[in-house]
């Protein structure tokens, strides 16, 4: 009997001492933390993507609670969610529009021929250490998926040599933008689905030689636009999304089909055109 009691007492004693140690420590080293931080953290989407510029959701929640920063937004949360959080903190919310990433290139293997037999590491940045671009157009999407690796939401996939973005899954966190060595990923409003899928600033003839769907800077879109929303600069068209109305006139006139309609509205829009 004693063989059981003695070890029991010894271990029990240890447990008691440790427990009182913990108790003292928890009282002595107690740090006050605003309980709202935990609550705001609960309300955030919890993607921990870092798209807000902070080290995860908790850090962002802490920032929101401690600072009167009305510009700080979670790119993943919808406007309503963000409003709810700010209302909880007793502040006015600036309603943000949902943004999505879009690729400024349509240089698929069919449109823009591969120019070499690249055999290095399968990463866009690694490829740029060996060559400017694996394709005929030196501005083109390399298609080795550095952005895919950066995306936390499974919104990006490589198809036929370029990255294809799922607008529904894209949360607009913007992490893919700096991940592209060719600087081809740009944010646009979710509802503005017309994009110039080209980033080539070479002269028209050179650009056309490199890729069948390159923007040649012909100015037809600029003339066709009734809203002053598209401008050609340095042989490349650029859409001003503040003014764009999704009318699709530029898409119709583009001789090289370098202006395209993104997202699931494609079919509807094309039929309307």
């Amino acid at each position, binding site marked *: 009997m004693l063989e059981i009691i003695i070890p029991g007492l010894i271990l029990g004693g240890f447990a008691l001492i440790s427990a009182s140690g913990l108790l003292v420590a928890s009282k002595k080293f107690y740090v006050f933390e605003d309980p709202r931080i935990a609550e705001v953290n609960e309300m955030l989407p919890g993607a921990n993507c870092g798209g807000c510029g902070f080290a995860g959701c908790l850090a962002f929640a802490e920032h929101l609670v401690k600072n009167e920063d009305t510009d700080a937004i979670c790119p993943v949360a919808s406007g309503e969610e963000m409003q709810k959080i700010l209302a909880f903190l007793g502040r006015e919310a600036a309603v943000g529009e949902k943004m999505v990433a879009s690729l400024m290139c349509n240089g698929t*293997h069919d449109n823009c021929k*591969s*120019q*070499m*037999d*690249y*055999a*290095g*590491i*399968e990463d866009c940045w*690694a490829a740029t*250490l*060996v*060559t400017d671009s*694996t394709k005929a157009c030196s501005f083109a999407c390399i*298609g*080795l*998926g550095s952005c*895919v*690796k950066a995306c936390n939401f499974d919104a990006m996939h*490589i*198809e*036929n*040599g370029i990255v294809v973005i799922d607008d529904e899954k894209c949360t607009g966190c913007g992490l893919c933008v700096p991940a592209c060595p060719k600087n081809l990923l740009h944010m646009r409003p979710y509802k503005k689905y017309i994009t110039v899928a080209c980033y080539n600033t070479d002269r028209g003839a050179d650009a056309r030689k490199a890729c069948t769907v390159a923007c040649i800077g012909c100015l037809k879109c600029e003339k066709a636009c009734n809203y002053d929303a598209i401008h050609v600069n340095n042989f490349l068209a650029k859409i001003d999304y503040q003014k764009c109305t999704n009318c699709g006139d530029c898409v119709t006139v583009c001789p090289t089909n370098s202006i395209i309609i993104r997202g699931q509205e494609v079919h509807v829009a094309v039929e309307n055109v």
Partner: protein
Amino acid sequence: METTNKVEVKNRLLFMDSSPLGHVSDSTVKIMYTVCITLLPALAVSVWMFGWEAVRVIVLTSVFTIAIEAIISKMVSYKVNFMDGSALLTGILLAMNIPANSPWWMILVGALVAVILGKHVFGGLGQNIFNPALVARVFLIISFPVEMTSWPKPLVYDSTTGATPLGILKTEGLGALAGTNLTDLAIGQMGGSLGEISAIALLLGAIWLFIKKYITWEIPVMFFATVAVFAGIFHLIDPQTYASPLFHLLTGGVFLGALYMATDMVTSPMTFKGKLIFGFGCGFFTMLIRLFGSYPEGVSFAILLMNAMVPLLDSYFPDQKFGMVKNG
């Protein structure tokens, strides 16, 4: 990761890659099979000593390990090339670590432990912390003590079994070994597992590995030296109780351990100082277990212990970088 879909390119294009564009002819496969081949002399001695039973064990371990690896390769997410020689090497090393009269089911258990617990739980080739064959050996020693301590007698070719010289030393003391001839021990005429018996044959194979630079001198030399010095000190203090350093070097698994097990690339340190400490530790723990432990033999435990220290050794004793020397 399926991030690219390479297209068929019709026009042949120039090849683009990062420098360097040359490469030596060495490959993992070549290294693995070379090590297997250098083990042949030791295997030949074991066949000479134990007859067809030894052949049976070698064939069974090799077939089992390769078959298990082949099955594993279908189940895991990473790529496994079960014919790259690493599975075969694990099989042969496992054979060298068990007695010639091992029953087939024990070999199967050993092979399962070696390949799965020893290697693939860590993530496959190159990721394992412990030497797979030794993990299996230790597992078998602990699980099947009877089968793993009844060693067949050499040159008898029947079912009579006996103890290893180290076993006799442990149980009956040095006096019982009075008639032992050191030459017999060097050739391998003693009871023991398949591979550990012949020091000369093992050394013969290892010389080729030294020439090919697949193993370096640091670990074996430190291992041998530590065993010899440790045993020597005790032999000098009390020659009646403690066997001579030479006896300790030639019996048991010191040669197999120092030349093939401890020098396993995956589970040994990569830095110079790390290798020295690793070799020292292996020898030290071997002798500690042999002289004061309850097991007669300690090589496998010692090497496994030191295997666990490898990541620490590598990071605490790195090779000195260029440009860190103060120029006088």
